[in-house]
């Protein structure tokens, strides 16, 4: 129970405290400390798991995501501390806004952790709504034309997605009622999945469509992706990092839970083909759209859509291998993409712009920063020896064995993205130095930590971790 208190209570408490503390230095530190406590509490879940109830569940699947989410939350809080001091200097943010920003950061962490541990599908929905609302606030924090538009768009599209997901949730309850009766049990996921074989398949099918569209909007799947690039590009970069690294994952996690429900009901449609189509569409669409990006944060936002596409595709292919690769890709994408956003955040601060055309030769003017970005992009495009290569290779090879034509689509999408990202990278990192060359006060530790983990995953995956993921992959069906 102490572990849960750390994962849920600490962010909630910290949010209240941070809203009250006027000094930004103190609150940036407190933000980091609170995130560290939540991370250690999450780690302790590996050893002692609290007993679940109708509201809370901790099982093999969500432990991985809780640890990942609190870890990225912690490293982002470190990056955020150095990022915001620069924003204060340039006057883009004021101390009052920072108070709000820090409080919202912890509210978001609370919402995401709550979504991950919730057993009740209604609570899951409320938690995802909370996380969405807090990120909307942060996306609009610069209050420029673009930031407000991005926040409003994110808000409207996110709200519609969330509303449809709730309708799906209600339908799931209706499907379960004849079997489970009313009451709290009728919405507890563990009870639902145990009795799913007796549910009305037709009702489950319709419910899943609503959930797929609803939570799929939050995952950023094409064609419900329109909010994603704007929200990533116009908000503060630490928020872009957690949006890509965490919030998309949490929404996808919710989808996976419902997919498991559907797989447990023999009469229901296979969710696979739906997910394959959406995933492949996102991958190909984002791959093409990457070529037209002029804004560096927008570029990597589209790369997130692309990766979410691959992951959803992998889970759609399912089977032990597909699920394993999907899980691995989810974890590695979180780590890599947030590392890239850390680097991009500092690059944009040094150069004073996000326009790709105005940024050049970073590896020459700021070698450490530039090369981190190069390594990050190499990792995200799936070049060996990084971990993403392993997971993408697994996805492609397993798909080739079962549906060669689909594999061709995936390979095309990946190559498209590879070409676009390397093209942009070559002008940003190499080539003539463009833009200011002032010194940079970057926080390298979070970036290096993430990239090192991705590299290690590519070279050597520890056996217990492989066994754990294989176990989850089987659970996912």
């Amino acid at each position, binding site marked *: 129970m102490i572990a849960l208190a750390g994962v849920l209570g600490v962010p909630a408490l910290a949010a209240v405290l941070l809203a009250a503390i006027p000094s930004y230095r103190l609150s940036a530190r407190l933000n980091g400390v609170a995130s560290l406590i939540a991370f250690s509490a999450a780690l302790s879940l590996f050893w002692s798991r609290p007993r679940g109830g109708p509201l809370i569940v901790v099982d093999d699947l969500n432990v991985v995501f809780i640890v990942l989410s609190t870890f990225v939350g912690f490293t982002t809080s470190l990056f955020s501390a150095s990022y915001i001091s620069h924003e204060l200097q340039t006057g883009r943010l004021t101390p009052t806004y920072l108070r709000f920003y820090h409080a919202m950061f912890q509210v978001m962490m609370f919402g995401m952790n709550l979504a991950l541990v919730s057993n009740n599908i209604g609570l899951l929905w*409320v938690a995802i709504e909370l996380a969405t609302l807090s990120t*909307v606030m942060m996306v609009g924090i610069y209050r420029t034309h673009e930031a407000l538009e991005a926040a409003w768009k994110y808000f409207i599209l996110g709200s519609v997605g969330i509303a449809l997901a709730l309708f799906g949730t209600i339908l799931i309850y209706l499907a379960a*009622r004849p079997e489970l009766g009313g009451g709290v049990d009728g919405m507890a996921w563990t009870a639902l999945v145990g009795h799913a074989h007796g549910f009305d398949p037709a009702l489950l099918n319709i419910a899943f469509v609503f959930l797929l569209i609803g939570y799929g909007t939050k995952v950023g799947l094409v064609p419900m992706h329109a909010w994603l690039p704007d929200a990533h590009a116009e908000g503060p970069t630490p928020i872009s990092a957690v949006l890509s690294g965490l919030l998309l994952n949490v929404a996808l996690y919710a989808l996976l839970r419902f997919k498991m429900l559907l797989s447990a009901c023999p009469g229901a449609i296979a969710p696979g083909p739906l997910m394959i189509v959406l995933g492949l569409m996102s991958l190909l669409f984002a791959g093409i759209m990457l070529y037209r990006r002029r804004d560096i944060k927008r570029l990597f936002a589209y790369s997130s859509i692309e990766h979410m596409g691959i992951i959803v595709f992998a889970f759609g292919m399912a089977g032990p291998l597909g699920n394993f690769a999907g899980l691995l890709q989810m974890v590695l994408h979180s780590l890599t993409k947030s590392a890239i956003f850390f680097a991009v955040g500092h690059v944009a601060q040094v150069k004073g712009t996000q326009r790709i055309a105005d940024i050049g030769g970073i590896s020459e003017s700021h070698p450490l920063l530039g090369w981190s970005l190069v390594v990050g992009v190499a990792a995200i495009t799936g070049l060996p020896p990084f971990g993403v290569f392993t997971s993408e290779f697994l996805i492609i090879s397993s798909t080739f064995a079962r549906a060669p034509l689909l594999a061709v689509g995936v390979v095309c999408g990946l190559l498209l993205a590879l070409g676009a990202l390397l093209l942009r990278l070559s002008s940003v990192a190499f080539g003539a130095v463009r833009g200011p060359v002032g010194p940079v006060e970057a926080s390298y530790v979070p970036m290096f930590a993430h990239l090192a983990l991705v590299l290690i995953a590519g070279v050597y995956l520890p056996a217990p971790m492989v066994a754990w993921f294989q176990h989850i992959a089987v659970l996912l069906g």
Partner: protein
Amino acid sequence: MQAISFDVAKLLAGGLVLTSFLMLYQVRLPAVLNVLALHSLILALAVAWQAHVQSEPALYITAAITLIFKAILIPEALRRIVEKLGIHREIENVTNLGITMLAGVGLVALSLEVMLPVTMHADLLTRTDVALALSVVLLGLLLMVTRRNAVSQVAAFLSLENGIDLAAAGAQGMPMVVELSIAFSVLVAILVIGIFLFRIRERFDSVDMQALDAFRGDRR
């Protein structure tokens, strides 16, 4: 008794669908907001009726929240925004009204066609409520895509949400309905505050969503 309780529930749910149609062809913002208030009022009655029929006192709370918050406070707040921004003028619809209405009829037919067969095992009360609720949700979506004005989009979203509330109230014995409706109300409240907070009028000189689109980053 069974027959009457069913008839009243059906009447109220049907009234909600009808009011959605009413909203669909309003071309002036103040009129849209009046219809929205009516929409929420009917929902409050429908939820209260469900509370009575299912003898589920918690649903009375949901009905009360709906009545006070969505039938009175929110429409009033939106009215003030409209007045402050001076946008009493006509709304431009994306497609013409005839086609929109026809699409609406199609959506209602679709939702009945989809929901009635699959809720065969549920009791009659739930069946009609959920089927009509889906119509309200789909009509709300249609409203959202045909309107380009931020205020009327929020009004459309509210009507969509009313449909979901109807489904939740109709699903007998569903736990957490009150909590969910409170969570949803928070979302809506922030939406409305958002129009204030983001000062859409000031910042963009227009609450017209088409004008907002022009700012999209890559065309800078």
